[in-house]
């Protein structure tokens, strides 16, 4: 290969690799001492999908997985519901800072997690179909109501094998677990 081809080739490789880089999906407040958090409450998640039970399902999986990680104590959903009802939060999926501080005081939480289910279910492209999930979570510190961690994750979707051979992709539950595990990994990284 002639030597004069090397610089343009290298430039092409660098450009191609740069194109593969995804957007940053995690925010961590560098001033926050995450070690001081012991108890968290997971608020009901916002549901932007057509599947009515998607938010509850994801919240259930997230609660179990976060508790099973052993790093944080998650307040039982029934107790969170009592706190929401006692404080009188009209829209629990997007509480105001004031509501957040109040509810955290009632249920004795160090932090509150809110989130959104943006995509849940089957996606189609041409004749191919596969299950997909897209989630985002925020961790809010209850004393000031500041967002100290935020992450989003997307799993599933139509891959090359789905396009070539069909098959419908992975089951929804498996994708949900993978997405939740990914979000938890981003919280502890």
């Amino acid at each position, binding site marked *: 290969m002639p030597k004069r081809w090397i610089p343009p080739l290298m430039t092409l490789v660098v450009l191609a690799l740069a194109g593969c880089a995804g957007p940053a999906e995690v925010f961590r407040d560098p001033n926050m001492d995450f070690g001081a958090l012991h108890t968290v409450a997971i608020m009901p998640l916002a549901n932007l999908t057509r599947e009515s039970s998607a938010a509850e399902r994801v919240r259930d999986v997230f*609660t179990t997985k976060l508790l*099973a990680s052993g790093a944080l104590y998650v307040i*039982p*959903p*029934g*107790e969170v*519901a*009592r706190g929401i009802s006692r404080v009188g939060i009209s829209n629990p999926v997007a509480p105001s800072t004031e509501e957040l501080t109040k509810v955290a005081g009632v249920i004795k939480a160090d932090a509150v997690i809110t989130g959104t289910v943006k995509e849940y279910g089957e996606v189609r492209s041409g004749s191919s179909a596969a299950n997909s999930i897209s989630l985002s979570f925020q961790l809010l510190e209850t004393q000031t109501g500041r967002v100290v961690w935020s992450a989003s994750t997307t799993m599933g979707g139509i891959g090359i094998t789905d396009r070539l051979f069909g098959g419908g992709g992975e089951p929804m539950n498996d994708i949900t677990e993978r997405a939740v595990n990914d979000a938890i990994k981003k919280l502890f990284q």
Partner: protein
Amino acid sequence: MPSKSSFSSLVAGLLVLLVAGCAPWHRAAWTGDKAGNAEGVVAILPLQNLSGGSAPLAELKQEFARRLALRGMAILPEAQLEQFMTRHRLRYVGGIDATTAQALRRETGAQGVLVTQLELYRTPFPPRIALTSRLVTTEDTPRIVRMESVALSGDDAPGLLGVGLVDKPREVTDRALRLLAEALTGGEPQPPPRVSLGSDSVYLARPLDPGRSYRVTVLPFYDKGSHGYAGEILALHFIGELVRQGRFQVVEPGTVREDLLRYRIIMEDGVSLADAELLFGMLSTDLILSGEVNDYQDLQGAQASPKVDFSALLLERSSRRAVWSMGDHRTGMDRVRFFDIGRIATASALATGMVHQAIAESLGR
């Protein structure tokens, strides 16, 4: 050509087997408890139908009672039980509360009550049935002595070229009732099917004290799916497994229901600590188990695979915190790698396996 001596030994062997086959069934009287010191009459309540469809409940009960009687259980006459139920306007047959249990003992002499739930009943091929039954004493505080369940499908063991398939509902039903009757009267219970849970499906804050016996209240699970009775069915599976573990004294669900109704406790999004506080005091219990069912499906058809998805939470009285939690979803085909080996045909059997695996591994002795 076999020799004379080998031929005669073969004939002798066959005769022995034939004679053994004619032997009367083993009769094991209900002993009330493992110590065998409280033999008594048992009232068999009508079956509670949790299957979501129609089923010949009266016939099933009659056949079940017959099988139990053959096993030596002394059964309260049907007419006497009916009179008692009419007198006390007893309509709920899914459990027994303390007042009714005492009245039953006083008025009929029954020392035990058999509460049976029909979880599944399908007659189209493959026929399927799932039953859960528990023996409860009629003491001042009703106590669950034994609890067993059975779930069978006509295609549980299809065998080579489908020779093991059972297409007659009667055969499946008879076998299920026989197995359940045997398990309740001292026979060997059905082993739970093997299910592999995910490694991050179970949370245990700390191991329970191995030398201590715990009193547990199991609340009906919140059913988020479309089954309608899945919450009650999952709660029954947990009760059964906790009873079998031996270290837990489970509060009779009839007593729990009575107290929930009396104090008008409604738990829309799970049990709160305030509700738990009330229940800990009312029922004198150390632990409260509650949960949610996201999916519980028994799809019909030879290739259909059941799905079960639930989460459970155990609250402790002393710390007022969740000490154990689990959540997982499984299908009947999860362990299948080769020719349907390891397939689980019913949601009931799948739930039994999941609950057994989760409890035996983390809460067992």
